[in-house]
């Protein structure tokens, strides 16, 4: 399968690989996917007092497109408010990386990972779910 140059770039030079301390109050952790399906994404955000995402880290078990999708969203969420980050759509990710149809699920997983990380952060701070936001595990 031919990968786009952007997928290859993110795959070969993944941005923001790593982990934050899950127990840290300023950190939200989202883990989505399942090994049996061939991909698992862990996305973490560090949020400052103003509710802005300062940093993000990821680890992904999956194909090149899954790795690239998660690497890309760690760049995109940086500097965004939780609401703005929650508004990132899988179609934007798929478009940016020129994912072929069989790899669209990678972008969906990345969107789910952002939502899961935000939900985790909100739970920690007793903020609950924002209106209209899909709840994901």
């Amino acid at each position, binding site marked *: *399968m031919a990968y786009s140059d952007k997928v290859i770039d993110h795959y070969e030079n993944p941005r923001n690989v790593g982990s934050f301390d899950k127990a840290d109050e300023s950190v939200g952790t989202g883990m989505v996917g399942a090994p049996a399906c061939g991909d698992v994404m862990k996305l973490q955000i560090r949020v400052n007092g103003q509710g802005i995402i300062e940093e993000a880290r990821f680890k992904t*078990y999956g194909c090149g497109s899954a790795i690239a999708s998660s690497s890309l969203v760690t760049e995109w969420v940086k500097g965004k408010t939780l609401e703005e980050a929650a508004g990132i759509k899988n179609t934007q990710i798929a478009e940016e990386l020129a994912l072929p149809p069989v790899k669209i699920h990678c972008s969906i997983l990345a969107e789910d990972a952002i939502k899961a990380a935000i939900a985790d952060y909100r739970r920690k701070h007793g903020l609950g779910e924002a209106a209209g936001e899909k709840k994901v595990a």
Partner: protein
Amino acid sequence: MKLPIYLDYSATTPVDPRVAEKMIPYLTEHFGNPASRSHAFGWKAEEAVEEARANVAALVNCEAKDIVWTSGATESINLALKGAAEFYKTRGRHLITVKTEHKATLDTCRELERRGFEVTYLEVGADGLLELDRVEAAFRPDTILVSVMFVNNEIGVIQDIPAIGEMCRRRGVLFHVDSAQATGKCPIDLKRLNVDLMSFSAHKTYGPKGVGALYIRRKPRVRLEAQIHGGGHERGFRSGTLATHQIVGMGEAYRIARLEMAAENERIRALRDRLLAGVQGIEEVYVNGDMASRVPHNLNVSFNYVEGESLIMAVKDIAVSSGSACTSASLEPSYVLRALGRSDELAHSSIRFTLGRFTTGEEIDYTVGHLRTKVAKLRELSPLWEMHKEGIDLNTVQWAAH
């Protein structure tokens, strides 16, 4: 050393230069139709076709007359299974095959099911091998044919063809063996084996693509319903003008295989063992399939906590194939590894290395070093590896399946 390194010999092999050289005159100079009986052009082509037939027969120790040319192993398997099922359907409508067979067999069996036949798909053990008791128990009074592959294409294991042949012969049930991956890799003696039909491919044994053969036993005689009509070539089993140059190539490839197989296998076994020792130096590596009853050319391993497609992408300096069929867009892990009882994760993380005539020690050493680096890099990226290192049992985690 040239990159990328080719370690996918079970997908296809390069045409041996000696084979290519032998083929060329049959494209330009001796271009006659082997079916032309009225002039020297035809005679010359026919002579070449018969010489090739004798060479194919010699590799597997049968009579040249028992060999019918086809376009490849897929066609041979289709002809054997559909041809026998259609001819013998008044005797019974039940066939037996194995879950780990090549799609050429499995899809043909599915088609026969659509035509009203019943097929039993046998399970294999964790080592990929058939348990003979299970084969024995699968026979029914209306069983007409059993089809088993000699060597598995994904994991390289060798099935007990003599024992299964014995079971079939005792019951008067036809036995078809897919030998696409076996020729030139293990000795085949059709005079001793109770095999009625055997499928061959040229391009897995350093011959050209687009040509294969089917062995059809004449004593006791096996009858088949032809699947391609038009001229009655090949004793009526397979019509169509013979592809002389392709056939010459297959004959020469099989002639070379017969002469060089023993020495070549030992050389390849040493290289495979070197590769195995190298990958076993990496943590959490699992070999798929039995190592004893196996061709020396194949090594199939799972790199736990690393996803197969990303690994293949990472090791772009080596041409291998993934047990994971993600690349074919189905997102399903290998059905062969699943049949071995491998977990989805391990099935997704597998790589098949297949070595061949032109593989060198230098290439193997480079491959091992390349794998070590890339597996380490991907594990650094893997949340599963992180959890494993933290001592979390992944089987206890509740995953959000998607």
